[in-house]
């Protein structure tokens, strides 16, 4: 037995070391073996590896099964954690260990392209079948890098048990909410780092946008947050803060709970929470967000889509799946049926009959693509933090705080 103990330890050690090695380089189980496609048997036809995170895997399970059956191609769907999938993809592709296809949001595009990890895609004439915004959303400097399949945005969710009619402006909405004597006139989640995403519809209603857009609808690098419109919005933010609408202590969870408990008639949120309200049996409607500054309020539209790895060993199959298969009406219908996200394919979106889904489709139709440039990473943090500072009254002068924010973001972008 004296010899046994170190030997057991060594065996354990080897096992651990092995698993550590394979974990670090992402193991052979996840990547297609190049040897299989080079073998001589004619029936062997390569294997496609698709990475998808837990928030999107429901969309894809059925459609992948159908693709397998239709094309007779082996497809492996690997579920990744939503917090890591993006970073892991960027790190793994250069080593040749990444997947062939990754499913994700359109605003990942900047990071992917600047790191050279995705391949350009030629949609050809299929582009016309998608909503114009969705194609722009997956373009970077005029080139396409992904195929959209769904769109999401935020809207105004109304609890029909508390309110039946919704006024046309945001100020009137607040007044109505106060009359209802519910605890909150309207819920907009913030949290301790701020949340520019949920405030953007109100900001756009002041004519203040994040980046300038060219005629084709593509974002340019020029920051558009400053100017008189931005300052008007900053002042309105301070007003919202004073009225108690914006509060750092109301994060997503708190807002959701308050709305579920009937503490507010309205909540600015997206389908992810609304679907839970429906499950709870609440009677809700999805409405466009009323304008606060006089112009149309436009939320960010987040598009979901598929990217192809720049180092895919199965580029042909990947293109077949992403470009040819996902763009068919049949596949889009299937994805909508499994996941419930509004299809980016116009023909499929037109077929929606569900009232709530229609509400979301309308909300998204009005949306602006969420910018995907790498600079956006700099923008989010400063943007949310400054808006929160203004609303909480920590920044005494809203206009000055807004100017500082714009300067910080510009510096940050220059440095990046």
């Amino acid at each position, binding site marked *: 037995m004296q010899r046994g103990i170190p030997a057991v330890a060594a065996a354990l050690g080897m096992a651990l070391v092995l698993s550590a090695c394979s974990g670090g380089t992402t193991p052979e189980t996840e990547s297609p073996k190049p040897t299989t*496609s080079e073998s001589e048997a004619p029936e062997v036809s390569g294997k496609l590896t698709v990475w998808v995170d837990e928030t999107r895997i429901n969309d894809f399970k059925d459609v992948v099964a159908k693709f397998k059956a239709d094309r007779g191609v082996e497809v492996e769907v690997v579920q990744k954690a939503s917090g890591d999938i993006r970073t892991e993809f960027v790190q793994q592709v250069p080593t040749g260990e990444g997947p062939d296809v990754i499913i994700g949001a359109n605003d990942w595009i900047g990071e992917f392209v600047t790191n*050279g990890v995705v391949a350009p895609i030629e949609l050809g004439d299929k582009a016309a079948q998608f909503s114009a915004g969705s194609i722009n959303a997956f373009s970077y400097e005029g080139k396409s890098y992904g195929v959209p399949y769904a769109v999401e945005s935020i809207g105004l969710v109304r609890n029909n048990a508390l309110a039946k009619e919704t006024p046309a402006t945001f100020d009137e909405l607040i007044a109505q909410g106060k009359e209802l004597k519910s605890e909150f006139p309207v819920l907009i989640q913030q949290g*301790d*780092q701020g949340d520019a995403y949920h405030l953007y519809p109100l900001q756009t209603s002041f004519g203040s946008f994040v980046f300038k857009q060219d005629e084709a609808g593509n974002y340019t690098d020029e920051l558009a947050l400053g100017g008189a419109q931005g300052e008007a919005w900053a002042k309105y933010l301070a007003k919202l803060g004073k009225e108690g609408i914006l509060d750092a202590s*109301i994060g997503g969870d*708190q807002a959701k709970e308050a709305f579920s408990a009937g503490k507010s008639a309205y909540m600015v949120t997206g389908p992810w929470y609304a679907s839970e309200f429906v499950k709870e049996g609440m009677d809700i409607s999805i409405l466009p967000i009323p304008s606060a500054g006089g112009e149309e309020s436009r939320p960010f539209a987040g598009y979901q889509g598929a990217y192809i790895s720049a180092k895919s060993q199965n580029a042909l199959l990947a293109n077949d799946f992403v470009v040819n298969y996902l763009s068919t009406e049949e596949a889009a219908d299937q994805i909508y049926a499994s996941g419930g996200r509004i299809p980016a394919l116009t023909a499929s979106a037109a077929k929606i009959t569900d009232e709530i889904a229609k509400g979301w489709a309308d909300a998204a139709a009005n949306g602006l693509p969420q910018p995907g440039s*790498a600079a956006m990473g700099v923008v989010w943090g400063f943007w949310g933090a400054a808006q929160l500072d203004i609303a909480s009254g920590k920044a005494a002068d809203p206009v000055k705080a807004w100017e500082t*924010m714009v300067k910080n973001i510009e510096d940050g972008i220059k440095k990046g």
Partner: protein
Amino acid sequence: MSISRGAAEHDSGAGTGTKAPIVDASPARNFRPGFVAKIILMACINAFGLYGLLAAWSTGTWGVFAGLVIALIAANYVYFSRRAIPGKYLYPGLLFLFTYQLFTMAYTGYVAFTNYGDGHNSDKGDAIEQILSYNESRVEGSAAYPVTVVKDGDGNLGFAIVQDGVAKVGTAEKPLEEASGAQIEGNSVKGVEGFTVLPFAQIVENQQEITNLRVPFSDNAEDGSLRTQDAMNAYQFRSTLEFDKATDTMTDTATGDVYTANGETGFFTNADGKNLTPGWRVSVGFDNFTYMFTDSRVSGPFFSILTWTFAFAFLSVATTFALGLFFALVFNDPRVRGRKFYRAILILPYAFPGFLSALVWKGMLNERFGFVNEVLLGGNGVQWLSDPWIAKFSILMVNLWLGFPYMFLITTGALQSLPGDVMESAKMDGASPWRVLRSIILPLLMISTAPLLISSFAFNFNNFSLIYMLTGGGPNFTGSPLLIGSTDILISMVYSVAFESGVKQYGLASAVSILIFIMVGVISWLGFRQTRKLEEY
């Protein structure tokens, strides 16, 4: 290596001493169960190792391959040779040391001297390939051609398309030209004389070659080439950049701009300073190390965060130790009833995962909905997490809650091992309880707990999860050019600068981690020197 050799000699002495009677017994003559177990275990290890070797071979990770070969040979030598008895004990530890410590440290050190991060993600070859691919685009207004992949008699792959009703075929060497004797069906080619049409299975087999195949559109290079990404539709592509390997430059064919490879920045840059993305990883020397001190926008917050980091680590250790010691003393007194029950209760905070507790505390300290404000303080809006000073206080309080059970455990253990006779004689001499505590218990306690206090200091110095989960470093410095706040400690600042400011900078993050490592190292070294003095008296 000197350390391991010393240990080895020590071990071998002990080993030969106990094993002397069986050294001469050959397994063949003395077939014991232990030997069978060893053979089985070694077989398992070798099987695992071979599996690992095959896996490393198939993915071409030669570093792992070489490491495994060495590890396997060493394992077999150590456990089958009779000369390597100390090695049998050392081998597993050394293996873990190499994989988990030395490799990580060496790699962090290497990354610290590069600009690895967003925009510099891979090597130069990959960057060139991607730049070329990103700058090759479909000729505007050109048609889509349903394509047929064909192979000529020599095995060269080619494309066949129908253009204006005429079948055309070409390969990489031969530009598209009218094909004689082609069968056209609709707008695609079904067969060409002198070529065989590739079936789907073969197309998939040759997909790398097919997606990389460029068939010149005509003799004129300006016309670009025909490419396909899915072997169904082909388009006319034209590249706007040309790479010249000899001069290491990219030339924009439209504007004539020349982008030269810059080995210092890791970019192709033209005369106006415009870069082509992506870039590649290059060595940047000590830039990452000096950045924190030379960039004025960072150095200011850096020093205030440095101060808070020391204050946080010191106060955390001091408060948790004081409270832990207090409870330990109280519950060490045999007069307290139900001591076991209280001790078990006190250990509870230690039993929860730290980050989970931090999250729960974050919820409880929420200004408007939190349990503390809502229930305990009757709706009083204390800004537990959003006022710079109160947030610091909250962090220390939560860390006290998280940390005192550990101190309670170790001081209880140390107290129970104190010699009873010393204490008794002190009492006989008429020392007051306070005097016993100050002059006998504490000095004796410090000998065994001081090293643990130092390690606790080092742990709190890098207590990322608490800060990240509880406040996220906030409240942020208003108007600061970096997203850092008044409760950030060094390690969370590194995270914020390197990852959350939008552009990932692994090189910078590694460099600052090394700086932190040096700081913690120096403090620990000073601390341990101090402890040795304690032992002496």
